[in-house]
């Protein structure tokens, strides 16, 4: 917890901070949980692909096609290195949402080695984002499988007291978030992974909120699949990643069908290429994959451990400050233990939307509402929250403006 990032230098790498917001305010961007800003190196990596290497990958024997293939394959091995996994285990998708849906479709296909049927159980948690909830609901509906879940506790942790009745012999899939996008809490997944594997179930980690913010090593965690979104990890929009163990991927049926994912095709039949190609039908999002690799490189150059520690320092100051503002209630974890740099709060009697609107006048960008985790919001007994989420380009003065704007929001509606 000692590290201090050189945030001034980092901010300078992100062109968006050069503009001013409403009424000449500087941008205090506290919505990285929704999407991150992009450093110049990412934007340029994407542009440079178009300037120098644009061609359909793996489909032509001319120079540009060679360059495109090299850039795209290179991006794949960069992402693999970042996660410490094999290149063939990295599938480029359009988003974490697509990644998770690919899994749900694969497990719903009787031709997949591992699939669910009537009475089989799928285990989730109440912390899940809609992207790691609805695909499984639909899988359950299609196959007759049963959805079960761990309850969320007020402090944002999961209640594992009933783990042996939640994960039983009938369990085939467990899909849990690595960090709540609403509360910032990091649930204790280790016992869940063990319990899942003990009954032969596969474990899927929604790492959207962790991979961009802290070191994540799928092999060390002992999980089977992992999904994250490029745009939350300094990467471009329109690219996500699905990681899966090779031997599992090779037994799975794809979701999307078309060019480049095939081995052989007749009018009535087709066979598939091996992973990762099998899961990447069509001309891929080449420039975005290349941009994502540049984003991950940027993160590595700063250091994921450093980023995580810095976010916790920002979080500490914010928690301390918010606690001193009367009528503000912080939801979820109240300490720095088992959490990342995401804070949800409510102001007594005020609607989050109105709070966010006042904060916007201070140049503060926060998200308000259910954060695509409606079941959790209901469980918390609120209609929505205001959420501040930190990243490597935030500094202590951003926290100060946050606190100032929260106070102002409260006063704006109180006084009148």
């Amino acid at each position: 917890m000692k590290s201090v990032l050189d945030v001034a230098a980092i901010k300078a790498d992100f062109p968006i901070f050069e503009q001013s917001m409403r009424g000449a305010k500087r941008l205090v961007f506290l919505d990285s949980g929704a999407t991150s800003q992009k450093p110049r190196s990412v934007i340029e990596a994407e542009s440079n692909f178009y300037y120098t290497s644009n061609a359909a990958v793996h489909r032509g024997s001319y120079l540009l096609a060679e360059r495109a293939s090299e850039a795209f394959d290179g991006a794949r091995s960069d992402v693999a290195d970042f996660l410490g996994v094999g290149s063939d285990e990295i599938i480029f998708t359009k988003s974490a949402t697509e990644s998770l849906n690919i899994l749900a479709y694969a497990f719903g296909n009787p031709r997949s080695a591992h699939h669910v049927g009537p009475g089989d159980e799928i285990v989730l948690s109440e912390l899940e984002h809609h992207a790691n909830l609805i695909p499984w609901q639909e899988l359950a509906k299609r196959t007759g499988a049963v959805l079960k879940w761990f309850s969320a506790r007020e402090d944002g942790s999961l209640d594992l007291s009933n783990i042996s009745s939640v994960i039983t012999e009938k369990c085939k899939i467990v899909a849990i978030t690595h960090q709540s996008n609403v509360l910032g809490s990091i649930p204790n997944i280790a016992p869940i992974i063990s319990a899942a594997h003990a009954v032969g179930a596969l474990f899927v980690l929604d790492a959207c909120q962790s991979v961009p913010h802290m070191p994540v090593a799928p092999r060390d965690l002992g999980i089977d699949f992992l999904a994250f979104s490029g745009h939350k990890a300094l990467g471009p929009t329109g690219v996500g990643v699905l990681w899966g163990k090779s031997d599992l991927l090779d037994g799975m049926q794809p979701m999307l069908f078309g060019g480049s994912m095939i081995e052989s095709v007749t009018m009535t039949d087709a066979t598939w290429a091996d992973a990762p190609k099998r899961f990447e039908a069509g001309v891929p999002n080449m420039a975005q994959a290349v941009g994502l690799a540049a984003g991950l490189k940027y993160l590595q150059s700063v250091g994921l451990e450093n980023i995580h520690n810095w976010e916790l320092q920002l979080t500490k100051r914010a928690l301390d400050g918010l606690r001193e503002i009367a009528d503000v209630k912080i939801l979820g974890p109240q300490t720095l233990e088992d959490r990342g740099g995401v804070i949800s709060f409510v102001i007594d009697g005020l609607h989050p939307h109105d709070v966010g609107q006042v904060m916007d006048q201070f140049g503060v960008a926060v998200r308000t509402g259910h954060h695509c985790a409606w079941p959790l919001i209901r469980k918390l007994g609120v209609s929505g929250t205001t959420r501040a989420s930190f990243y490597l380009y935030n500094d202590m003065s951003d926290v100060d403006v946050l606190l100032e704007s929260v106070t102002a929001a409260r006063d704006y509606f109180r006084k009148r």
Partner: protein
Amino acid sequence: MELDSLYQEVILDHYKNPHHKGLPTGEIQVHHVNPSCGDEITLSLAVTNGIITDLVWDGVGCSISQASSSIMSDLVLGKSVDAAFSILDEFSALMASKGAMVGNEDVLEDAIALAGVSKFPARVKCALLGWMAFKDAAIQADTSWRREQ
């Protein structure tokens, strides 16, 4: 402050003391949500001889959606469905105006206080939530009333 054009006194008054908010018990009942923020409204309505004779709503939402629903109720109660719909059209136009219109006070009364919302595109759907619920309910009520004739 730009904010004051959004949160006018009239709006905060309606927000703090919303009109016709209660338990919607009528036969014609609709439930609308704003999926992006989770705000919800339930609204019930009665139409007799083409006139809106009853309207009660309940819901959770921001000041803009609550105030707008309150103002809408005042405006349409006692009017004919046709007259109410023409008010709705005028209000929709105001919301779509991106700050270019001020609104006709003779028609919109308190609702002109919502003109400032049109400069905040993310809030327009807050202001429209109650109106859309009303529209939906009124069409149903009107149809069922006509059927009974």
